[in-house]
């Protein structure tokens, strides 16, 4: 399953709730303001790093670049463009947006 999150982890609870409900082996794609969760030094870094034991984390590169965060990505987070976003949706059996 692909989980899609779009909100900043320091503003809302959706990244945290998604990670609490993502099954082992799921993929989690961070887009829009959720890409801040993929960056180093922030309050969410430890939580995201620990989640990487169970799920694979992706972040949308154009959204990172738009926020000046392209150089701050946590090691192990996979970067995709919109084409990669499409592939992730196509490759997983189903998807869920955490709005």
């Amino acid at each position, binding site marked *: 399953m692909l989980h*899609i999150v*779009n909100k900043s982890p320091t503003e809302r609870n959706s990244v945290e709730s998604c990670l609490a409900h993502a099954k082992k082996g799921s993929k989690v794609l961070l*887009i*829009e*303001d959720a890409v801040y969760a993929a960056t180093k030094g922030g309050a969410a870094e430890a939580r995201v790093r620990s989640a990487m034991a169970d799920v694979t984390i992706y972040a949308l590169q*154009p959204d990172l670049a738009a926020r000046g965060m392209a150089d701050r990505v946590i090691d192990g987070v996979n970067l995709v*463009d*919109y*084409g990669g*976003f*499409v*592939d992730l*949706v*196509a490759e997983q059996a*189903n*998807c869920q*947006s955490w*709005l």
Partner: protein
Amino acid sequence: MKFGILVNEGPYQHQASDSAYLFAKAALAKGHEIFRVFFYHDGVNNASRLTVPPADDRHIVNRWAALADEHKLDMVVCIAAAQRRGMMDDNESKRQGKDADNIHPSFRISGLGQLVEAGIQCDRLVVFGD
């Protein structure tokens, strides 16, 4: 693969419509089919033909319309959500006794059944919102 796309927020205020558009464009570029783009909640505001964004900014409505025209996309605006928010086509305007309408011709107004049908018909339904 057959995709459906749901857009829950209006243009400019949230990035949802931008993300959905760029996703749709990328999916088409990869040879996928977009079965339907459904606009719900404030998403119905993406269908206005009266928007005039600054000249150096993207024109969200027109680029959806251009993508739809090029790829024969079915872009559907939820009628119940549209009524609450003042989006109407010519027919609906007459039916409601209004003196104007504002839907761009590349969009059509229909019921929520069209969203459920997209869920049934599509291999994947991707939701964009706030």
